[in-house]
């Protein structure tokens, strides 16, 4: 399935785009699998991925969270408010 992941801030600059599409096999891939796929799809994101979290449909989820094609997925990393 194709998952679309929103990018923000420095990670959007690193990837050169605000959204990235990733192909993942299986009916319900997890966030952990998405993380690995992102590192391959956008090399420049790789160093910041370990310290990043995912939000699915606007809520933080854990790495074992299963993903569906219609989910709104956001990569939340390199944050620094204040």
């Amino acid at each position, binding site marked *: 399935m194709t998952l679309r992941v929103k990018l923000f801030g420095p*990670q*959007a*600059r690193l990837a050169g785009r605000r959204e990235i599409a990733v192909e993942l096999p299986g009916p319900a891939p997890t966030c952990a699998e998405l993380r690995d796929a992102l590192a391959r799809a956008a090399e420049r994101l790789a160093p910041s991925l370990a310290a990043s979290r995912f939000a699915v449909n606007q809520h933080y989820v854990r790495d074992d969270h299963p993903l569906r094609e219609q989910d709104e997925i*956001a990569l939340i990393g390199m*944050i620094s*408010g*204040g």
Partner: protein
Amino acid sequence: MDKTPSIEVRLVSGPVRAARGEDVPGVGAVVRFEGVVRPVEDGRPIEALEYEAYEPMTGRELTALAHRIADRHRLLAMRVVHSTGRVPAGAASFLLVVAAEHRGPAIRAIEEFIDRLKRDIPLWKVPVWAEGESPGADHVAHQPDHAGFA
């Protein structure tokens, strides 16, 4: 910072600030924190920071955090204002005001809120380099300028 700090000390007759009708009764300490955009980022001059939020998640997480901190420290009032978009150097991008009965919880609430903000709240900043400063390769090499995202 080997400049002499600017220091002003005054004793005044009567209140430093009059009572305000709208205040929550019982307040003994009001602490206000302002986060200001510094003119330098990673050692290089900037013009501004460009802040991004992910709404409505950002506002919802900020509100949840405010309630958690207010409960834990028994605050009487709390106000949080955060910028999105461009904030020039010298301007404030973040305001946090807490009111409590005593100063200890008020100060701890400020510290804890900011620690959590920087760890948990979907907010990002990207430097807008000062004119004449070419972006370093380690930062934004062959990336479109942030304006390209607007």
